[in-house]
């Protein structure tokens, strides 16, 4: 990706100034930092001035913003400033990547599906109230299907020749405690998106920073950072999570923090090996000999030039996190307060024989979401990274 301020040329840069901290920031970075400060101020207000049970917003909707929601807002801001804005300002490059990406029609379908899951997951829970316990309407079958009328306590749809038919009131049926499966699925979309995107943002930020700094600084810094990565890589995050979950109890926040803060080892290795190749190239030598500061080179030359591999690796990281979260909440080792897909699958496991839809439908959404991320990641690699052949 090219610089986003076209007026800046090699001659116009004040190279003496690039040693200082702030001159390495572009207009986009300043925008990102300003909005981050805004969010931080709002967080401080919510955390210190409002009591925990008072909702942060009462208008236009009542919304008590949780710790996780704050992190999610920051993640969305990062996506806006570092994915959406560059794509918009470099329209010619965007068109080129899109033309490459479009060759893979399966990936385009997947992208549309993921966009739908993302939008419904972010917007849906605002309008749908949290699924409530309603034993009178338990085990309603999905619409267009029918089960033996003895399965639901009280069939809401038509009963014909001993079979209970599903209704549009509960398009995907209800669970054994009467919660609507569609509402649970929509809430699960938000949980999955939060888990996938926030953990990946943490991994990408830390991994890219460590990788580029290790590659460009070299010497002792490189050695210390990479040996630390070695140690971190041998400690399996899954079992660290099990241990901490056992000691402190599970929460989604802890899941994201543990997997985000310990999962960046292989990303750092990937970025370092890529950045080592880049730092041999002529434009880095040119910037170096013009007297550019370390931070400036890393920020303006190394990070943009490794970003293609980073984006590809990140798309393939997201489904891994989603799958892990679902697996853990399936084992009831996740966050019991959050309606995640894994939890619904686990809840429907005991009455698979009578109410097949409770476990299978959320599982289908989980499966298709992971599949879609893999297809998109594969197509992105082909589009962004023509050197890599897999």
């Amino acid at each position, binding site marked *: 990706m090219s610089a986003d301020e076209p007026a800046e040329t090699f001659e116009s840069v004040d190279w003496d100034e690039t040693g200082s901290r702030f001159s390495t920031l572009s207009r986009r970075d300043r925008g990102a930092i300003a909005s981050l400060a805004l969010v931080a101020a709002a967080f401080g207000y919510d955390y210190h001035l409002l009591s925990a049970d008072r909702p942060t917003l009462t208008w236009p909707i009542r919304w008590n913003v949780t710790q996780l929601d704050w992190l999610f807002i920051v993640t969305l801001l990062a996506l806006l400033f570092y994915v959406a804005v560059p794509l918009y300002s470099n329209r010619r490059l965007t068109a080129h990547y899109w033309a490459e990406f479009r060759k893979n029609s399966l990936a385009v379908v997947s992208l549309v599906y993921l966009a739908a899951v993302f939008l419904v997951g972010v917007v849906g829970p605002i309008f749908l109230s949290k699924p409530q316990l309603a034993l009178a309407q338990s085990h309603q079958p999905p619409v267009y299907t029918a089960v033996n009328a003895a399965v639901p306590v009280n069939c809401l749809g038509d009963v014909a020749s001993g079979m209970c038919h599903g209704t549009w009131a509960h398009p995907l049926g209800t669970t054994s405690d009467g919660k609507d499966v569609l509402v649970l699925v929509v809430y699960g979309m938000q949980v999955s998106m939060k888990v996938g995107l926030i953990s990946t943002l943490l991994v990408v930020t830390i991994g890219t920073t460590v990788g580029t700094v290790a590659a460009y600084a070299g010497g002792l810094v490189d050695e210390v950072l990479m040996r630390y990565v070695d140690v971190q890589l*041998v400690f399996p995050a*899954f079992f660290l999570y*099990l241990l901490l979950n056992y000691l402190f109890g599970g929460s989604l926040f802890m899941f994201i923090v543990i997997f985000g803060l310990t999962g960046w080892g292989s990303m750092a290795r990937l970025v370092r090996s890529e950045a080592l190749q880049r730092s041999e190239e002529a434009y880095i030598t040119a910037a170096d000999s013009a007297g550019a500061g370390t931070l400036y080179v890393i920020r303006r030359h190394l990070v943009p030039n490794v970003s293609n591999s980073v984006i590809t690796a990140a798309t393939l990281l997201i489904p891994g996190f989603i799958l892990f979260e679902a*697996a853990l909440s399936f084992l009831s080792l996740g966050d019991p307060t959050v309606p995640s897909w894994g939890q619904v699958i686990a809840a429907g496991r005991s009455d*698979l024989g009578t109410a097949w839809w409770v*476990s299978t439908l959320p599982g289908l959404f989980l499966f298709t979401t992971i599949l879609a991320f893999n297809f998109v990641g594969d197509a992105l690699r082909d589009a962004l990274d023509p050197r890599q052949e897999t």
Partner: protein
Amino acid sequence: MSMRWYVVRRVLWAVVATYLILSVTWGLLALTPNPAAEQLQFRAAASGGSAEAAREAFEARRGLDRPLWDRYSDYMVNMVTLNWGWSDSRSQPVMEAIAGAIPYTAVYSVPTTILSVLLGLSIGLYSATHQYTRTDYAATFFAFFGYAIPNFWFAIVLLLVFSVQLGWFPVVFDPDVPLVGFAMAHQLVLPVVVLVTGTIAGVMRYSRAEALEYVQAEFVKTAKAKGAGEFRILTRHVLRPAAVPLMTILIGDILGIFLAASYLVEVVFGIPGLGQLSYNAILAQDTALVLGTTLIFTFVAVIGNLIQDIAYTILDPRIDYGDR
């Protein structure tokens, strides 16, 4: 640097890593309140006794009132001498519980590993030599499917279809049948299918990518020109150079996917192996057993990494040992 020195350094590094893992785990345990102690205190308070006295009695019995350094060195000595404590929930030493569970984990993991390596390699090599044919596309799709499908959900669906509806396989695992025999093989079909679909995808994709680099190589063309058969070309000329990078994934990645997946599969199918032992220990708040089982999994990962690196250097003498 000589190869021997590299191997020695790599083994030492594994020892250091193990030591660090043990220390971090000890630190975590020392910092946090023990769930079992909390339960005792709660019970004492509920029956009118003093919670403080109950805690002190508990700490004295477990030796937790001694200085930190004594506790740390005791813990380390116990770990090294494989004296891993007493499991309260099972009323047996932790080591005995683990030793009893290992055969059940081995009985499905050995066939899974053999099957996924054999099938994954052959399908991967086949799609590399028949690139862009219908079989290649089918194999690629299958790989994506196996990689993306959540193991535990796939296991539930298979159980629903083949055990509940069709009745082909037993729904409940019976641990009393002999370990090697038809009955055991019969009830392990579904778990092995689930695990193979999960692990085969990686092997297939990597072996296809690695083999693709060599199918057009000069030495393969030479072999073809001198009249070598397809099978001979595949095994002697393509597989041998491709085997080196394949080792990296074969040991490391399979092990990684496998450890987490076996945990889920054992819980879903009710196989009383290591995963279920660890899961039940968490539910029963049995700290010694939780620690023992998680550490076993961690050590398997550390040793897998070690074997992978050493195998890599032995297979490929060109590797520069200075740059890891």
